[in-house]
């Protein structure tokens, strides 16, 4: 199973990953349109990206959510009607919505952000667990 693993102890909260992600998928530099969210706290930053747990899949009434062969939960835009039951079901708050886009979005472990991180705080990792 492939997913984005986060290492908050390394994170310096530069937010470059958020820029990389939102630029890639929404062509704009906007943390509200990023699939990884970095929240600064008094201690180490809180890093939020989908863990591919799959809990949202069962909440979708149109079967728009599915798990691909690499274990990544994907959103099928053609089937999604934007009811946001998945956003409510997500235990980590990692399914997002934004103004002007009906379909919600989430980290799909593409690795684009990992190439920009200066602190080795995000890595794509594969594990054999089911």
């Amino acid at each position, binding site marked *: 199973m492939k997913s984005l693993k986060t290492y908050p102890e390394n994170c310096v909260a530069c937010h470059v990953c958020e820029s990389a992600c939102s630029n890639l998928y929404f062509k704009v530099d906007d943390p509200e349109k990023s699939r990884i969210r970095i929240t600064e706290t008094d201690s180490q930053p809180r890093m939020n990206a989908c863990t591919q747990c799959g809990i949202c899949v069962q*909440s979708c*009434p149109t*079967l728009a959510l599915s798990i691909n062969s690499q274990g990544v939960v994907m959103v099928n835009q053609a089937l999604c*009607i934007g*009811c*946001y*039951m998945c956003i*409510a079901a997500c235990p980590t708050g990692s399914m997002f*919505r934004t103004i002007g886009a009906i379909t919600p979005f989430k980290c799909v472990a593409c690795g684009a952000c990992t190439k920009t991180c200066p602190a080795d705080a995000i890595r794509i990792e594969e594990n054999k667990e089911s």
Partner: protein
Amino acid sequence: MTDRRILAEFSYELKPVIKGYNRRTLYIDLGGKKIESKPVSDMMIDKFVGGKGFDLYLMWHGVKDDTKWNDPENELCIAFGPLCGNTSYPGSGKSIVTTISPLTGIPVDCNVGGHFGPYAKFSGWDAIEIQGKADEEVIVYIDGDAGKVKIMSAPDKETNSHILAENLINEFAENPDKRQFVSVVSAGQGAENVLISCLNFSFWDKRRKVARLKQAGRGGTGTVLRDKKLKALVVKYSGLKGDTNNPVDLETLQKTGLKLHKEIEEGDATQCRMREVGTAHLVEIMNDYDLLPVKNFKYGQSDEASSLSSGEFKKLFTQGLPDGCWFGCSLSCCKAVDGFVPRTGPYKGQTVSVDGPEYETVGGCGSNLCIWDPKDVVELNFYCDTYGIDTISFGTSCALPWNAMSMES
């Protein structure tokens, strides 16, 4: 494939819904084979809003003081409202049905879930008004993708809803993957014989691959449908999205809806447990408070009621699936008993999915008749639904003669 003749056809312009309204209602005269569009005025919106208001407004103008339920002049109206079809708030799939009731002689109104309401609304109509009686058995088909309404001949032998709804969904869906875009209104053999009937509004369950049925339960609406020789209404609409209503402020709507989704997700498990057992959670509450109908309303409580508690029905319901009868309804209160095999009647031995039972069916067809086996309640639920009979009226109507016959002299 059923051989159908087109008896009347009406083409209309497909236009987007604006702020929850189409600004037109659909009028169908089955006897005269007439199909028309009527405008929705500002006054209608200001004073009557939609739903029951529109239904009764249309009936006010459509029938007379002395119109009987089985006069051709009687109308069967189904209306939606500005919020209908949105995917942010629970209960947004509802339609309101009105007609002059065969049981009372005056207007009755029912509310009903399923997909028909939103699909008919997004097909272009704020309400549907049906009058007259057809010369032969017909169906009405609203094609919301093409902008056409047709009255078609209905030689279908089957009128019972669990089969007819599925047959019509298969017939009118473009392909098996698009069955979720079709919804059917139908009744059944029971509605052709008694007045205590209901209408079934279907929704295609993609996971279970069955047509499930919600009911416009009260007042004999199914009898009016069949009296008009209307076997079914079918609607197809494929363009549903979260913003199809074109609300004024989508952002606020979605944010508020999401807040509600989350509150329900977090709170329901310790409150009404609708997502877990639906309205059946009420059985034990009503029993505790001496309000459960028992033995023709003679008692409000029974020690035997524990066998009809929500915990017993939970064992029969398939858990862990999104069960709402409209997309985005986070309350998701309808439940289904899958793989149920009726032990009696013409469908004995066939495997079916039964939507329900709701609390009212458990009370009406269970405790009020001193029927304490949950499987018996599910079987009664199944037959009532497919026959187009209202479970509440059925249970209550049986309770009186049964009680009278069993009373000691």
